[in-house]
């Protein structure tokens, strides 16, 4: 248990440093935006007849820190705001807290990402096992090559091709949004049907884009395990094929679970293209909108959230490994 606790502590410490780095980047960028929008806003409010005090406060609400004071003071202000989960107000949706806007968007990112990733993980892993076992055959070759090609194609190219195919050439799927506005949001069949219809292309793109990686990773993992002595040993002890297969599968999939946890974290930020193309109102689309609308509080918040997701995924991945691999649990470093 102490090993786990020590690893967790290390991760948390590193995570904290990462959060500091990322927020500092946001701060520096917001401070250095050409034209100094903060000062501009402050002056505009004064012009509109606000008292300096009021104007200062109003600006602080928007950007997370006061426009006055030394740089250091502003920085400390900004940071304390962040750590009390006060990210300021969004400019795009006046009066809305950044945290609320973020929460709303997260929902639309997490669900499709989760479904798409799990789907591609399951199929990719199975195909990977097959490609490994049949690696000298034609079909194994085809699987591996298709895997590397899909793995090599950038997500947005895939999304655009799928979009062009299913919304323009054969218009059977909607080209954007989360659901048809005709239907009342809620727990009714029409709305849910429309939700699924609209989520199909994003999910399909996630799934296809990551499928190639899974098949390649699983294939090489299985090939490695197949060469391990204990598989031959099990065979020579007359173990049943089913049991040997389970030995292979469990040992081969182990490193993939770590990648799975990591990729779930990465997809928080990796969904940007897909959300932009299919106009899906998740975190990625929000990040872009916040940049084009110069909504810097929201931008900083989204950037932070995406980073935190990755940090958490890192921790989860490592903890997962500790739980499922007895070698790590007892404190022994595994080379693989």
């Amino acid at each position: 248990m102490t090993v786990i606790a020590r690893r967790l502590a290390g991760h948390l410490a590193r995570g904290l440093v990462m959060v500091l780095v990322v927020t500092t980047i946001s701060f520096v960028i917001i401070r250095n935006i050409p034209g100094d929008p903060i000062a501009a806003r402050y002056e505009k409010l004064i012009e509109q007849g606000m008292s300096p005090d009021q104007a200062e406060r109003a600006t602080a609400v928007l950007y997370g820190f006061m426009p006055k004071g030394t740089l250091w003071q502003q920085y400390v202000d900004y940071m304390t705001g962040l750590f009390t989960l006060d990210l300021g107000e969004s400019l795009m949706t006046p009066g809305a807290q950044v945290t609320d806007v973020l929460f709303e968007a997260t929902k639309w990112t997490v669900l499709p990402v989760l479904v798409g990733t799990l789907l591609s993980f399951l199929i990719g892993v199975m195909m990977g096992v097959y490609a490994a076992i049949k690696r000298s055959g034609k079909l194994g070759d085809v699987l591996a090559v298709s895997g590397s090609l899909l793995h090599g194609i950038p997500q947005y190219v895939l999304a655009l091709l799928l979009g062009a195919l299913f919304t323009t050439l054969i218009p059977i799927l909607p080209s954007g949004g989360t659901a048809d506005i005709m239907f009342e949001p809620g727990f009714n069949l029409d709305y849910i049907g429309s939700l699924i219809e609209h989520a199909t292309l994003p999910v399909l793109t996630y799934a296809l884009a990551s499928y190639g990686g899974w098949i390649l990773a699983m294939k090489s993992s299985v090939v490695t395990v197949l060469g391990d002595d204990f598989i031959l040993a099990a065979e020579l002890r007359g173990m049943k094929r089913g049991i040997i297969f389970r030995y292979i599968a469990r040992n081969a999939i182990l490193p993939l679970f770590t990648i799975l946890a990591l990729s779930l974290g990465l997809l928080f930020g990796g969904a940007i293209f897909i959300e932009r193309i299919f106009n899906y109102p998740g975190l990625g689309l929000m990040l872009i909108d916040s940049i084009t609308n110069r909504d810097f509080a929201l931008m900083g918040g989204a950037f932070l959230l995406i980073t935190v997701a990755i940090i958490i995924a890192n921790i989860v991945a490592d903890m997962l490994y500790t739980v499922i691999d007895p070698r790590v649990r007892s404190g022994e470093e595994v080379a693989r």
Partner: protein
Amino acid sequence: MTVETMPKAVPPVPSKTAPGVRVGGLSVVYKTSAGELPAIAGINLDLVPGTITGVVGESGSGKSTLALSLLNAVQPPGRIAAGSVEIDGLGDVVALRGEDLRKARGRHIGYVFQAAQNSLNPLKTVGKQLLDLGRSHGVSDLRALVREAKELLGRMGMDGARVLDSHQHELSGGMRQRVGIMLALVLNAHLVVLDEPTTALDMITQATILRIIREVHEERGLTTLVITHDLGVVAEVADRLAVMYGGRIVEQGPTREVLGGPRHPYTRGLLRAIPRLVGDIDEARALPGRPPTLGTVPREGCVFRERCPLRMDVCDTVEPLAIADGPRIVACHAVDAAAAKETKA
């Protein structure tokens, strides 16, 4: 025979259940880019029931391939090209396929891996793998199997319960080796093949393992084959000895006789290469040259001739036959010629 019916209190009567093994004309080839190359060719070897046979050879001599052949488990790209492996109570293993072959492995023939090799699933405890083994072979009383395993482990000087609860990485080399022996014997196999049982172990553990092999062999009435590159190991445990070179058995016979009066020039060279505690270190002389590999084994003639001090013209073209002289068998033209001279005189 199933585990439940095995008598526990009384040790089994030696030799009663030990099977004999007759390897006849066995050849194994490996597929390479240069075509199929023989790893072992025309091996004839009898394992007498209830004895320990040691097979000695340098790496690449084909001894591991021979060991795997006994279980019909030569790994691709290799395959058994000719010959048979007759095991009492099992028939010709080479002809076995599918389920029959799988059931023979583990239940009739136990195979013990080299200690340095990781022969256990790293993710499962020894006990769980034992249960997997039992289920694979249709053992109905798994409790009895566990009891038997604990007894065996206890017999080898280990805390059975603790070992069964351990993962591979928690065991030392010597412990792994004993677990390997346990897994080979727990289904009551009476033919046991040990591949390099002492390699990568320290001296004291080596001695312990060899003692255990000897004792378990006697107690359970086994037929045992030990594969090793170490003449010392053979001298310690084996009743009979076979020396392999270039995929052939060049000399075989009772251990004491072969070591006391080696006839094949290769056996002599091997013995001469061992430094002794007493005597001049300069007397220990390594064999000149290198052992052949798959690709460099001569296609015809004697495989040892390149390094042989007694090389004759006939060695280049004719492969020497294995000639029996009492219990001893040697395959060498020079030895034949000397013997012929002797009988003439």
